């Protein structure tokens, strides 16, 4: 079933896992000069039309996650608001009009962190653009040029990453107030002498994820049309706005959980693969134990014990999904530890942490990238299932799984506008990640496809 990642796990069990990634495939490409492994993989991957579409979709969802506060929000970008000042004695003074920026003022910490990382991504794009060679590949560069280019690339990336991390920490720690209880829909309706707002510029979709219509029967479960392109749910919230905001939770959980899985799995697998013997034996037993409990059973048990805040859910999904990665890394390390450069590193008396993490790990992580892609898809499914069952992220946070659950019991009353769109979004996103995973696997290990 889709909440597990049998595709990724299956690969590890098979004999292929122990084989090296085919770094020397495609002899014809050597004519273009020296090529890095990733350049070859990238080209093989980019050849597939489906891969391109899937990547496009994922980038689109990422973009959406960053800009969604500016797309779907009940507060205007800017408006001139009427203020009612009082003097020191508390007597009312004549009202004044002040230009305000409610949307920007009300951005939450999470919004700012996403924006910061969006900026980092744009910065990286610019960096790559300034470093472009214009000759397709690096064939024509002299060794010196290439060295400088590589140095700039790593320096730039490092600075950008550091800036992103510093900004995130600053945003997370810094003082931030946002509490805006004004009903802008009501303010727009006040005209003439009653008006308290003018010259408002609204986002394209004037609903946030938690903004409710007045709780009247006519405004709940509205079918698509009119003010609400995709209708409203049982709390009078706009479905389209929640759909857009839902992308954010899905991606946050998908990525953060997978990073947690990756760290645990890589470390654990590296330990098993390097210290074969007893460590390996005991380690594998533990992996088998964790795998023996059905993933969803394990997830639900941990949620029952630890509660369901967003961060907790991320940690839980991450801490239960690392076994596949651990198996992958272990298999890679078992292979790599026999290699000459490891023996050389040992002979040179390098400390163990350097051998493990500077020399072996970068070489052992290549096939893991496939597992990570499938893992993100699996995490998205896990999150949607937990939210669907009512034990995922807490309302009113918009999550596609929770939105599906809001549709109610389809056997009795089927509210199609609540069920179709969120499910389709989960499907498309998971499908995109799975396609990317398959594409990357075929690109990294073409042997699988070349058996004719």
């Amino acid at each position, binding site marked *: 079933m889709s909440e597990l990642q049998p595709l990724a796990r299956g690969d590890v069990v098979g004999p292929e896992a122990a084989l090296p990634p085919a770094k020397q495939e495609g002899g014809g490409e050597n004519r273009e000069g020296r090529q890095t492994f990733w350049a070859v993989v990238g080209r093989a991957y980019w050849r597939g039309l489906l891969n391109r579409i899937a990547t496009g979709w994922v980038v689109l969802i990422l973009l959406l996650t960053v800009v969604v506060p500016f797309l779907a929000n009940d507060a205007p970008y800017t408006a001139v608001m009427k203020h009612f000042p009082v003097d020191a004695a508390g007597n009312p003074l004549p009202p004044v009009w002040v230009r305000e920026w409610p949307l920007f003022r009300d951005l939450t910490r999470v919004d700012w962190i996403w924006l910061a990382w969006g900026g980092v991504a744009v910065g990286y794009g610019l960096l790559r653009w300034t470093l472009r060679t214009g000759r397709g590949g690096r064939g024509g560069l002299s060794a010196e040029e290439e060295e400088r280019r590589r140095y700039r690339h790593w320096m730039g990336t490092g600075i950008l990453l550091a800036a992103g991390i510093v900004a995130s920490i600053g945003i997370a720690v810094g003082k931030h107030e946002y509490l805006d209880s004004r009903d802008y829909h009501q303010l727009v309706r006040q005209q003439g002498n009653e008006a308290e707002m003018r010259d408002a510029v609204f986002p394209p979709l004037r609903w946030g994820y938690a903004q409710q219509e007045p709780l009247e029967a006519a405004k709940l479960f509205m079918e698509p049309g009119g003010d609400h392109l995709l209708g409203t749910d049982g709390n009078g919230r706009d479905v389209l706005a929640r759909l857009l905001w839902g992308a954010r939770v899905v991606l946050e959980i998908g990525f953060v959980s997978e990073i947690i899985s990756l760290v645990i799995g890589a470390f654990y697998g590296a330990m098993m693969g390097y210290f074969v013997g007893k460590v390996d034996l005991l380690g594998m037993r533990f992996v088998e134990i964790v795998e023996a409990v059905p993933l969803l059973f394990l997830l639900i048990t941990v949620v029952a014990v630890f509660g369901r805040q967003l961060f907790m859910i991320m940690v839980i999904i991450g801490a239960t999904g690392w076994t596949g990665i651990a198996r992958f890394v272990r298999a890679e390390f078992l292979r790599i530890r026999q290699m000459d450069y490891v023996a050389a590193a040992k002979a040179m008396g390098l400390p163990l942490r350097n051998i493990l993490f500077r020399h072996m790990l970068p070489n052992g992580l290549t096939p893991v990238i496939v597992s990570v892609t499938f893992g993100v898809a699996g995490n998205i499914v896990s999150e949607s299932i937990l939210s669907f069952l009512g034990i995922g992220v807490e309302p009113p946070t918009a999550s596609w799984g929770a939105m599906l659950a809001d549709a109610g019991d389809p056997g009795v009353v089927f509210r199609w506008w609540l069920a179709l769109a969120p499910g389709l979004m989960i*499907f498309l996103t998971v499908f995109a990640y799975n396609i990317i995973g398959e594409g990357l696997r075929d690109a990294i290990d073409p042997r699988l496809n070349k058996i004719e």
Partner: protein
Amino acid sequence: MVPTLIGMTLLLFVLVRMAPGLTTGGGETGEMAKQAREAMEQRMKERLHLDKPLPEQYGLWLWDSVRGNLGTSIQYNESVWALIKERAPVTIVMNLISTFIVYLIAIPGGMLASVRRGKTFDVVWSFVTLALFSLPIIWVGDLLLAYLGNTHYLGWFPVAGSHATNTEWMTSVEYACDFLWHMVLPVTALTLGGFAYLSKLQRAAILDNLGLDYVRTARAKGNSGRVVMLRHVFRNSLLPMITASAGIIPSLLGGSVVVERIFSIKGMGDLLVTATTARDLPIVQGVALIGGVISLICLLITDIAYALADPRVSYE
């Protein structure tokens, strides 16, 4: 096998012991109420062995579990074992049917894909199975239930439960048919995602075998392609499929949690989810343990079946 089982119980025990403390209500401030509450807490602690050191607690819990005493549910005040015994059969039968159907479709699909490798069927089949694998089960379940079950739409299938309400008057054959009738939609939802992995495995296994010497020998003896395929390659390619069942059954069990929820089937998964929302930890622990044990039993059966199917394998 046994170490894995013991490790699993230890894992679950530690997990549940990490839960925030036991509360027995409160709010009353009077001396009598306080005494009563303390007495109740004491009784509760004794009942759950919370007054003993941790290793002893674990030993007692394990010993109780082995004897079939998984504790008492907080919300139903019934034995957890009795609850699970009542709920497990539906879940297990549903999963067995699903496993059977997944194999029934995935094996021919994978074979055809390997025969037509690189051609249209191969490409389309792998695309379709990947799409089915990506379909979120919560969505498929909802849509199947709505369009095929809801009487406002087609209304072909029952919308809830695992059998009709008037089972007392049914003969056993009728009962079986009724049960299967109720299982159509849940099993469909459960199976859709399973094809991708198994058929890809089957395809790879056949392709691996095709390159081996015995195939060339069989061909050289003048056998037709069909005979070589069905009599030699196909049989040998089934071995990985046996191993795969060990991995597919835990995931199906997980999927059945959702399916039971959507189709209101009173199975183990439904029990687990209701217990989680009510923070009924004895049930959660018990169901997770039984789920793990079922997976381990499947693993054991797989190992035995593998040894039977392939005489070269021995577990000495």
